[in-house]
């Protein structure tokens, strides 16, 4: 893995929304890299900026009232500052997204086959028959029974799990090098969740893609990612190999997440137990560590100065905390 080429380099990425109540820094100072064929997990509570981050990486943030700074090099293409037209060239073919909610991410009045073969016809210039044949192949690949008949149905005629398979098939249509999966199983039944995650894993291997797997459920990323980024209030607070984040984390928020999470061996469906206190208001962030108001280890410096992300041990492990946990305190994976 270490000699694989780097596919994605994110550096000092920040996304700020202009809202009526002032600037809202949804993502701030995020840097990481992703190699080819690697699966990276991004975890954090709801509202921690995972969706904004994954969309900003693609350049898919809203077009108005938003400012993006920093750099995202995707297979050599600088996404930040690129025009919509330039980004269109990479969307679908270099990078694609599996959206969170299959109930809202498919066009309700367009037959699913048409939604899948749109990329094939418009972007890859395939003719109608070839595109249809390929779309049916894709439906089969994502495990939809009798794909040829399903080609012509509307999303409303399918269950949530089936719809998410259609979303995945659509994302795969352009054979992207990078697949962004934004909470692909939230809102689905437990058994369906596991099926979808396994499906993602198998198509990743078949199509040799890199995957960014976004979730608020650490159980989801435990067995399926090689590295994990933990986000809080739009920033990375800890990152490292999956093993290190589970077994040797140093940041109290990571531990709080893990304590609320089922053990790795459990099925990947349990939601995080609520961490006491509320996520911070991004419009009015505390001066120091954003986690301080909820942290039982907080000291004076935590409330005054924000801890920077510092490298810890090997393999790119890093955390941002003034009073890190001793290594032995980790919850074993």
């Amino acid at each position, binding site marked *: 893995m270490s000699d694989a080429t780097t596919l994605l380099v994110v550096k000092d990425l920040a996304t700020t929304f202009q809202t009526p109540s002032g600037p809202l820094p949804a993502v701030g100072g995020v840097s990481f890299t992703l190699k080819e064929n690697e699966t990276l997990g991004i975890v954090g509570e709801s509202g921690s900026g995972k969706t904004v981050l994954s969309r900003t990486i693609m350049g*898919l943030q809203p077009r108005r009232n938003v400012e993006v700074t920093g750099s995202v090099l995707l297979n050599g293409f600088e996404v930040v500052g690129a025009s919509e037209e330039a980004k269109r060239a990479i969307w679908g073919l270099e990078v694609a997204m599996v959206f969170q909610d299959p109930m809202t991410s498919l066009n309700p009045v367009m037959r699913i086959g048409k939604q899948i073969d*749109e990329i094939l016809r418009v*972007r890859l210039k395939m003719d109608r028959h070839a595109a249809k044949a390929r779309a049916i192949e894709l439906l089969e690949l994502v495990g939809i029974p009798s794909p040829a008949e399903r080609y012509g149905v509307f999303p409303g005629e399918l269950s949530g799990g089936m719809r998410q398979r259609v979303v995945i098939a659509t994302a795969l249509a352009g054979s992207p090098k990078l697949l962004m999966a934004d909470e692909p199983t939230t809102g689905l039944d437990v058994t369906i969740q596991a099926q979808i995650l396994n499906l993602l894993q198998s198509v990743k291997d078949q199509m040799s893609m890199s995957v960014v797997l976004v979730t608020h459920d650490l159980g989801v990323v435990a067995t399926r990612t090689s590295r994990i980024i933990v986000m809080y209030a739009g920033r990375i607070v800890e990152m490292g190999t999956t093993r290190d984040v589970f077994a040797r984390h140093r940041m109290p928020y990571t531990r709080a997440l893990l304590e609320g999470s089922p053990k790795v061996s459990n099925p990947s469906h349990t939601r995080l137990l609520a961490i006491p206190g509320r996520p911070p208001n991004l419009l009015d962030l505390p001066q120091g560590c954003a986690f301080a108001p909820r942290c039982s280890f907080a000291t004076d410096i935590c409330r005054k100065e924000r801890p920077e992300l510092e490298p810890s041990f090997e393999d790119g492990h890093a955390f941002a905390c003034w009073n890190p946990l001793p290594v032995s305190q980790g919850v074993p994976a």
Partner: protein
Amino acid sequence: MLIGIVFIISVGAFYLIHLLPGDPAAVILGTGDSPQNRARLFKELGLNKPILEQYFVWIKNVLHGNLGTSFISQTSVWSTIKSALPIDVEIIVLSQILAFAVAIPTAMVSARKPDGWLDRLLGATSFTLLSIPSFVVIVLLVLFIAIKLGVPHTGVSSYVSLGQDWVVNLESLALPSFTLALGSFVVYYRVLRSDLIATLQEEYITMARSKGISQRRIMWRHAFRPSSVALLGTAGVNIGGLLAGGFIVQYLLSIPGLGYTLIQSIGLSDYLVVQGIVLVVSVGVILINFAFDLIINIVDPRISRE
């Protein structure tokens, strides 16, 4: 249901027209004639019977496909309607083509950047148009376009049908069609604009965007269809309204469509013609709405599934 509505309308029309002052005998004989002659004519026309009985005689004939004969002109009501109706249909079709052809692209332009300068300009324009009644529009158009440019604004006697000479026909119907199109445009533009703005916020639009397809394609292939349900519903009601309410424009421009004929017949107390037109128009309005309901169900499969 449909039959019930038509029945109620037919009763209403029948009753109302008999309430109006004036009677056909006076029109035919002139006011000075003797009461004996009047009574004889009343009897001939069947107007001496109780109104309820008159109604049943009429409706029985209607159900047998016979709308009767005009008291005044002695021509069959159906043939009168048959020669007038195509004019209404043509004006409506022309006006709707115009209205949609302008409303759809402008609504898309507005929805792309809500509150942008183009959207504001279009909004102000449509608001201005909305506040001008159609008879004022006609007078202005006649004054400034028809007379200045010499576009014929026609008259009943000089009316030329589409089959006879389509150029002259289109010229003469351009003005009324344009007038009706203005009103329709404003309504369609506003309804579609707001639905498009809502649709463009949807997650499936972001998903479409993530496929790297053009803005234009997103608008037409992804946003337009789910945004057109209210538009179609409005169009159904509006077109029905144009059929039923086309008389202002027709009357002002002396175009011998149904509306014009209706007003004339009311003035002459030509009961059977009035009743026939009201019946045909109300059936037409209902059919139009029915057709649009069907179209809506095809356009948005969610609706029939519910």
